[in-house]
C-alpha cells in the first residue's frame, strides 16, 4: 500500500466521520440555531472527501472537479448558514430594521 493510498483512506474516513457527526448533531440538538451549525461541519467533511479523491487521482479531470465541489461547499456554506439563521430570526421575532426605524421615530418625537 503506497503512502498515497494510506493518506486517501485517512482523509476518506475523516470526511465520512465528520458528515456522520453532522447528522448526529442535527438529530441531537433541540433548537434550529443549534442545528444550523452542523451544515458547515458537513461541508468540511465533503472537502476532506474531495481531498481524498485528489490525493488518489492527482490533478486529473475527476480530481479537479472534486476539489471544485468541495471548495464550493466550504466557501458558500457560511453564506447559507447566515441566510438561514437570518430567516429564522425574522420569522420568530420580526424584521429588526423596522424595529430600529420605529425606535428612531419615537426618539425623534
Amino acid at each position: 500500500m503506497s503512502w498515497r493510498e494510506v493518506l486517501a483512506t485517512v482523509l476518506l474516513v475523516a470526511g465520512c466521520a465528520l458528515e456522520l457527526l453532522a447528522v448526529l448533531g442535527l438529530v441531537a440538538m433541540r433548537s434550529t440555531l443549534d442545528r444550523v451549525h452542523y451544515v458547515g461541519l458537513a461541508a468540511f467533511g465533503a472537502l476532506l472527501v474531495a481531498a481524498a479523491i485528489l490525493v488518489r487521482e492527482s490533478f486529473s479531470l475527476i480530481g479537479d472537479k472534486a476539489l471544485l465541489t468541495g471548495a464550493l461547499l466550504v466557501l458558500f456554506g457560511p453564506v447559507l448558514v447566515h441566510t438561514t439563521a437570518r430567516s429564522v430570526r425574522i420569522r420568530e421575532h420580526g424584521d429588526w430594521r423596522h424595529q430600529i426605524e420605529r425606535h428612531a421615530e419615537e426618539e425623534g418625537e
Partner: protein
Amino acid sequence: MNEWELVAAILAPALLVCGAVCALASPADGLVALELAGTITTTVLMLLAEGLRRQPFIDLAVVFAVLSLVGALVIARLLEHDL
C-alpha cells in the same frame, strides 16, 4: 465493494434521517435538514464517481452542489414570511 463504495453506502442512510427531520420537524428545522442532505448527496455522488470510475457522476456532483445551494437560499428567503 471498494472503500469508496463502502463509505457511500454508510452515508446514504443518513439521507433518510435528514428526510425524517424534514417531514416531522418545523419548516425551519426542515430547511436545515435539507441543506445537510444536499451536502451529503454531493459527497455520495463524488464517492460513487471515484468508486465506480464513472466520470459523469462527478459532473452531477458539481451541478447538484450549485443547485442545492441556490435552492436552499431561495427557500430561506421564502421562509422569512411566506412558509
